[in-house]
């Protein structure tokens, strides 16, 4: 069985998909748009949606810290401000926004003790939210399941799909 975004109950046939790959960031004010992160494991997706302007942004963070090049939000420490900047450029106010976070799973128990990247990603996101004076409106973090997230730009509804089923934040 393949779970695809077309299965999402929140999507209309005319929706415009913008996909944030690993370390990438997408944003939109198109009310028919949907921002997507597929197959999150240890990675963390952070979304921001402004209920007044309907500006939306979604970042797919891969690692808590790092240096060097690569995609814009590969590392939380380097990418978090870029994420907020992209949101502001579309007229979003971080202080007014509904900010949500999903992911940070520990998929491989064999590796978990030595790396625990999922937990460290979650801690890094929480630290940068606090530094920015922001609070999570909702979250689905940790555990041991993979997740796909879809942010509906028009409504701010965040759909989370996993092997176990679908839920909305």
């Amino acid at each position: 069985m393949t779970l695809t975004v077309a299965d999402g109950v929140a999507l209309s046939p005319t929706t415009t998909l913008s996909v944030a790959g690993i370390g990438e960031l997408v944003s939109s004010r198109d009310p028919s748009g949907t921002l997507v992160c597929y197959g999150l494991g240890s990675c963390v997706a952070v979304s921001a949606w402004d209920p007044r302007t309907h500006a939306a942004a979604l970042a797919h963070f891969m690692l808590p810290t790092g240096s060097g090049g690569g995609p814009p939000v590969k590392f939380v420490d380097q990418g978090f401000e870029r994420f907020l900047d992209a949101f502001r450029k579309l007229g979003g106010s971080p202080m007014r926004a509904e900010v949500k976070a999903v992911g940070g799973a520990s998929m491989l128990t064999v590796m978990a003790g030595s790396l625990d990247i999922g937990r460290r990603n979650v801690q890094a996101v929480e630290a940068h939210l606090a530094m920015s004076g922001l609070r999570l409106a909702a979250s689905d973090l940790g555990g041991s399941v993979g997740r796909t997230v879809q942010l509906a730009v028009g409504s701010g509804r965040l759909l989370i799909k996993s092997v176990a089923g679908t839920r909305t934040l």
Partner: protein
Amino acid sequence: MTLVAGSALWQASLTTVFLNALARAGEALVVMSGHEVAVEPARVRMCSVSEVVADTGSPDAVVAGVYVGITGSLHGHALLLLSPDGARRFAGLMLDGILEPADALAGPDGDLILSPLQTSALQELGNVTITACLNELGTYFEEPVHPTVPQGMVEMAGAILDAVLMDLVTDVDQVLSAQTRFHIGGQAIDGTILILPDAPSLARLAEAVASHGR
């Protein structure tokens, strides 16, 4: 001779390695399952992670995977990926004689959950095939290549791969992929074996393969 990791000659050498390894794995699977087993020649290539994900359909395509860590002369990770249905059929054949076939294959069509016994059989399948590959790679080194305990799961392909790549992402953007097809008891089941050495191990492997050919 310098053999560059990822070059055509290097891939040809590794194809031979995988063919030998999968032949060994096939022999072991015959003993385990009691069924006739054939393993089709593998398509071996170095490719990007996004290409691997594309092979599975999409990052949120659900697959049955077995993870094995690599230690010893090489360091890194290895994965066997199958469709959930393929994994269930494989498990049914391996559990034939232990459980009634109907019990071994229990679960409605499209069911993504494997029973503990099916998961155990899947882990053993991954253990046998991946260890055969690692043993073959180990023949190029003075010290053996060791596998860790296998972990089986049914999960989104992207989620499994991103968990593994976290450990490698700072220095590796290409992985070693071998796509193959198992024929067991008259059934054809597609599978992909991924060997993901860290950067120093990849360089060491290229050097070892080159030395072997001198």
